[in-house]
């Protein structure tokens, strides 16, 4: 591959205001064990690079999986940036960021690439063996690893190299009573093969969940108080609030948090952060623009305190960039993304939250959700639910789905417990990003539950 600095000099000579090149080399391996049989096993490597060019107010980015074509890609990126500029009226720019020179390898005890395939097969088989088969009709255990080496070079002089390993394990089990039910749990993080140990803790969680679902009733519908468990609270904060705090959505008028910095957006005692330095699945040392990763305190005691920002959105919002730019791989440009999104614990006991509810729902672990950041609306499904009556958990529920308005719901947080747990996930925003989300138990005084009764 041609020296990135030479390529960028050429682009600057041709009128580019700024450019950067991100080169990546990926190694991936995955195994899927379905009902005791190795269903899929795959391994491979690839490399490529993306050139990003800013010409006046226009951006052009071209990625290629053929490093010999990088010069052609850079020329196309410049031409796209020029054409993009012709259609643009809005001014753009990049907020200043410290020039970085660094070479970081994220710590890991055991590089997954050095672990024999036999051991990974034993892992998925061992996890499956530990699943109680009494009421489970089908099992799926997945293991996946990625190790990526990145080199980010910018026309301003930043040159950052980093190696990021990630390991993940999923358990998916199905059972049948009067309906067919499914329960899932995942474990993993940023680090080495040692993270697979966490998967063993999830075996009992997922089997117990399925057992409850098989005896569960459908939930009531209407406006009810709802307690989220740490996993669901984390996903809620990520989806309903975190996305609205992404700089690109804010600067393009797609967020209900626009113009609310410094305002009260949540109940007293609510503290939310997005922290790429937290040891989770969304951890990284530098973002994909070469900005050093730092903790973002988004909500401080109910007051909106910060956003997640890349350099362009920081420029547009007149703020400091804080390492919010992430790209799925070398084919695509970075977008503003979350990392590890966390709502901080409070001081109540979980039992005290339950006691506060006359009739409501205790919802555990998310099976997905969707938000509209501009309209400030959300919808979530819990994997597992319980009916609460007179301050006591009465019976299990399935297919618990609820929705509401983000800003209203954040103000309706009337209790936060003192426990904490973080989970892992893959966030989609046109591109996939590995993330963690976590929190304590959280009582919302009023959400709309969509049941079938």
């Amino acid at each position, binding site marked *: 591959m041609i020296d990135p600095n030479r390529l960028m000099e050429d682009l600057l000579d041709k009128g580019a205001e700024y450019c950067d090149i991100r080169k990546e080399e990926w190694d991936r391996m995955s195994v899927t064990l379905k009902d005791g049989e190795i269903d899929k096993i795959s391994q491979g490597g690839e490399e490529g690079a993306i050139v990003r060019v800013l010409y006046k107010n226009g951006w052009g980015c071209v990625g290629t999986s053929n490093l010999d074509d990088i010069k052609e890609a850079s020329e196309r990126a410049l031409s796209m940036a020029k054409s993009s500029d012709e259609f643009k009226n809005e001014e753009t720019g990049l907020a200043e960021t410290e020039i970085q020179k660094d070479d970081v390898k994220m710590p890991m005890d055991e590089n997954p690439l050095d672990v024999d*395939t036999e051991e990974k097969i034993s892992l998925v088989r061992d996890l499956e063996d530990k699943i109680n088969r009494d009421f489970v009709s089908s099992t799926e255990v997945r293991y996946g690893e990625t190790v990526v080496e990145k080199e980010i070079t910018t026309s301003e002089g930043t040159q950052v190299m980093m190696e990021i390993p990630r390991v993940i394990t999923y358990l998916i089990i*199905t059972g*049948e009573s009067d309906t*067919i039910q499914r329960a899932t749990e995942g474990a993993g993080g940023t680090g080495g093969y040692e993270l697979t140990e966490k998967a063993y803790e999830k075996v009992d969680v997922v089997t117990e969940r399925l057992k409850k679902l098989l005896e569960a009733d459908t939930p009531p519908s209407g406006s009810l108080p709802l307690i989220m468990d740490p996993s669901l609270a984390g996903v809620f904060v990520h989806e309903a609030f975190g996305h609205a705090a992404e700089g690109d959505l804010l600067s393009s008028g797609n967020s209900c948090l626009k113009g609310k910095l410094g305002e009260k957006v949540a109940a007293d005692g609510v503290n939310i952060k997005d922290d790429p330095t937290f040891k989770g699945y969304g951890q990284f040392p530098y973002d994909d623009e070469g900005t050093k990763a730092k903790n973002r305190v988004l909500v401080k005691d109910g007051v909106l305190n910060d956003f997640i920002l890349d350099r362009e959105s920081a420029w547009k919002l007149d703020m400091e960039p804080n390492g919010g730019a992430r790209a799925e791989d070398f084919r695509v440009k970075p977008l503003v993304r979350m990392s590890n999104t966390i709502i901080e614990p409070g001081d109540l006991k979980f039992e005290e939250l339950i006691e506060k509810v006359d009739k409501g729902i205790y919802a555990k672990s998310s099976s997905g959700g969707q938000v509209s950041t501009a309209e400030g609306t959300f919808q979530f499904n819990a994997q597992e639910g319980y009916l609460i009556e007179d301050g006591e958990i009465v019976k299990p529920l399935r297919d618990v789905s609820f929705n509401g308005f983000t*800003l209203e719901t954040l103000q309706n947080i009337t209790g936060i417990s003192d426990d904490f747990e973080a989970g892992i996930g893959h966030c989609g925003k046109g591109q996939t990003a590995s993330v963690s989300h976590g929190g304590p138990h959280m009582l919302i005084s009023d959400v709309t539950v969509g049941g079938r009764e």
Partner: protein
Amino acid sequence: MSDQIVESVKTAIEEIDKRGLKGDVYALKEKAIGHSIKKGELSESSGYDDIGLGIRVIKDDKIGFGYCVPGKEEKGVKHAIELSDFSERLDLELPSEKDTPGVEVYDEKVRDVIEDSEGAELTQKMIDGSSSVADDITPTRGGLNVSMGTRVIGNTEGLFLKEKGSSIFGSVTVSIPQEETSLQATEIGVDCKLDLDFEEIGGKAANKVDSIRSSSERLSGDHPVVISPYAITQLIGFGLIPAINGENVRKGKSVYQGKIGEKVASEDLLMKDDPTVDWGVGSGAFDDEGVISKDTPIISDGILKNFIYDLKESAKDEKESTGNGVRSGFKSLPETTHRNIVLEGEGKDRDDLMPDKGIYVDNVLGAHTANPVSGDFSVVTNPVWRVEDGERKGRIDGLMISGNLPEILKSIELADDRKKCFLQIGSRRLIIETPTVRLNDVTISGK
């Protein structure tokens, strides 16, 4: 450049052959561009060139898989052979049939959009269309994605197939600012031929948002729900399509297990997976394992006819592959996956489907939370209008609809306005050609 992909596939097959093994090699070369819309104007342009190979090797009836880029074929084959040791034995028969149907999926005009700056102009048309309805309506999100590619599949049985394809995807989300938040609506167009009316896409989005300005209304009780092609695509995609997948059926993860030949839907319903439809966004002459494409009826006259299979699942279930071996890219093994689902019914005029009292749903939030095993769903509708005497009235906020998709099919009614719809499910795309439908068995809940 396409010769590089052909040579690379041949090299990889030779690598497998010379070791006395069986296998297949799938390669994809893609060129794509995208133009995004933000704050009422074209925001940025991007693109990528991608090429790679997926190599599946069968050694002692065991399958291993590796992927690589051209030039690294030997390494890719080596990975695949090493991993095959860990797989289960399976009698996988690779196809050798070479007579492909003629299916139109490549529009030469797409090349011009990718090579020239025409993409930016088409994006501008969506912006212009959405800005023309009212001054306070702004296109805040969306864009145009155009790609063309060459797919090659070859195997050690002498099969060697190559096909060019193209796809165009345009979307625009428009907003009207409100005191606290904003009102939004989205319109999407997808095709593999460059005959989308981009200005119309923008105009439709703007007209939708313009019609939800009035303050939110309320509706209680259960009523018929008329739902747009795009919204029903989402519900069916997440809550019903998994149930027709041969693997899920074999493993008891489908409500349709053991029901072939039974009446499962309203008499008029035809649901088929037909990748031989010209210009179908999921169409193609062969699947990603080299099995020749065919039209597979799933539900016909309300009767359950077939499930879908790839080579592996058909070997396990002792069935024929239906040509539904689909890969998410060259890095993935094939999986049994829908290709170009088509939904047809009696074909009433859309206006005749509108109830005396009910709702019209344009879009749903959270369809991916539908239970893929039972088909139960509970989703937020947005935007949604109250319907009275067959006419759309004011919007309703925060309304949820819940139901069970297999049950809903028994009384579903379909209009005659079939539209190509698109849904991203993880790394896979679901293509459904469906009209507007009326659902008569759902629960409505709201504040």
